[in-house]
């Protein structure tokens, strides 16, 4: 194993163990709530970046994938009463399929047209759920928090640890993609699709891998959501803010590097939590907007891009 790989896996293990340790020493449930929200945003950002950052297709319909994941787990829970891991798996499959479908859109739609199509997809899904009474329709649906929570002190602690594991898994996949042969193929598509095709890159197949992976990850982020909030309605699940956040976080962190969306999500997510609690929940929406504008104008390569420039200058 290369040294950087060893460091990476070491850090991942350390973070997971630290999360486990927190459940032993920290009693205040609010902190687990807050960290859950940040981790959920991290998965969404990492997922968005696989298509948006690595492959160059902007997805505006992230909320659609997220909500599809949430509703898939509601249906599976209601119909079959499956335990959480199976709900997550089911949501990943469902949203992966949805991603595959969206991938075929790239055959005809590029750039802004693709972005509009993904937004439309989210709206179609929302209309569908609004009129589906089995999952509560527009009224929404209440869920009971399951009583079992393994050896953890409360259900939210268990959800937090599950989400931590999932987020770390997504980060590991994204990092592997970024540096692999597959990742170079995706980058070639982002830079110039025609030239990529002529260099032997099977562009359609790679785009399908990218959209499917993105969809599945977003489904994973959405699947535990119903048990986190215990009340889900289309308005909150399909919230445009979910989509905006999953674009803004990678942009702020830097889209070209796997670390970008992670940094962006941790930074923006934490700031949002602090502002929501201490100032107002309206102001945190403004924060994302302002940060996005500032970064796009002053540092279009994001925080990772700034850091890379700084290192280059110091070395050269």
């Amino acid at each position: 194993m290369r040294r950087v790989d060893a460091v990476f896996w070491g850090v991942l293990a350390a973070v997971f163990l630290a999360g486990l340790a927190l459940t032993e020493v920290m009693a205040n449930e609010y902190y687990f709530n807050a960290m859950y929200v940040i981790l959920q945003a991290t998965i969404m950002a990492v997922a968005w970046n696989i298509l948006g950052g690595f492959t160059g297709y902007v997805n505006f319909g992230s909320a659609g994938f997220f909500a599809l994941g949430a509703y898939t787990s509601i249906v599976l829970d209601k119909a079959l009463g499956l335990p959480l891991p199976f709900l997550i798996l089911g949501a990943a499959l469902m949203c992966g399929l949805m991603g595959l479908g969206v991938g075929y859109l790239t055959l005809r739609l590029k750039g802004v047209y693709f972005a509009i199509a993904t937004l439309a997809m989210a709206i179609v899904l929302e209309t569908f759920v609004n009129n589906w009474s089995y999952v509560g329709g527009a009224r929404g649906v209440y869920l009971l928090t399951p009583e079992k929570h393994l050896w953890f002190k409360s259900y939210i602690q268990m959800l937090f640890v599950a989400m931590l594991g999932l987020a770390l898994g997504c980060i590991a996949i994204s990092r592997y993609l970024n540096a692999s042969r597959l990742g170079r193929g995706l980058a070639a598509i982002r830079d110039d699709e025609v030239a990529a095709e002529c260099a032997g890159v099977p562009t359609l197949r790679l785009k399908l891998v990218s959209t499917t992976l993105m969809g599945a990850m977003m489904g994973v982020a959405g699947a535990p959501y119903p048990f986190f909030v215990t009340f889900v309605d289309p308005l909150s699940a399909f919230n445009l803010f979910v989509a905006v956040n999953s674009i803004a976080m990678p942009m702020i962190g830097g889209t070209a590097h796997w670390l970008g969306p992670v940094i962006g999500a941790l930074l923006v997510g934490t700031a949002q939590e602090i502002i929501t609690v201490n100032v107002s929940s309206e102001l945190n929406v403004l924060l994302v907007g302002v940060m996005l504008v500032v970064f796009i104008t002053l540092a279009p390569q994001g925080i990772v891009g700034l850091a890379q420039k700084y290192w280059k200058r110091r070395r050269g």
Partner: protein
Amino acid sequence: MSEPILRVSGLAKRFGGFVALEGIDLEVRAGERLGLIGPNGSGKTTLINCISGALYNDAGRVVFEGRDITRMAAHRRARLGVARSFQIPKPFRSMTVLENLRVPLEYAAWERAEHSRITDEAMQVLELIGLQQRAHEGSAGLTQVDMRKLELARALAAKPRLLVSDEAMAGLSSSEVDEILGILRALNARGVAVIMIEHIMRAVMGFSERVVVLDAGRKIAEGSPEQILHNPDVERAYLGE
């Protein structure tokens, strides 16, 4: 005479009502140097788009090394050994020069490449082209002539049997043209057949063993460079009546 590696027969391409190419027959033998000339808008780039797979032709067949590739996707043609450079350079801008070459090595030539030596192979191509000093620079910041070289290097990294060079020299100075010509000759000496599309007559006539002339989507002449230079139809196509 050796077997043709590329045989185009009865090829036609229309864009809506506009006939871009009609009844094109073309053969290229292994290791041959073929010049493709014609006035602007005569269909040269459309023809090589149909050969490389960037566009599908409406009628006719394209056969490469005995295989019908008429309906084959561009990336699969690249794997078989058809490579092209673009008239307007299309580097992978987020990558360094070296990484640009990794893409065709890892995709088009993957089955023929030594997987553990990709970087070495990329460096060899860069040395042949004369870009080794730029290997670790970003490709977006290259000069025009280096950008053209990168186009050829990337095409070469796909380990082609046939290279289509689409106006690799347009806008370059006389000495730069000679440099690119030298590269193309070196490639050809390694057994790669070259189709050269060029407006610079000195280059294309000096380079080609055989020249094909297109005008308004049709092939109007074919022959040795001397024959083409003295062909009245070609003169008419370029200069008018």
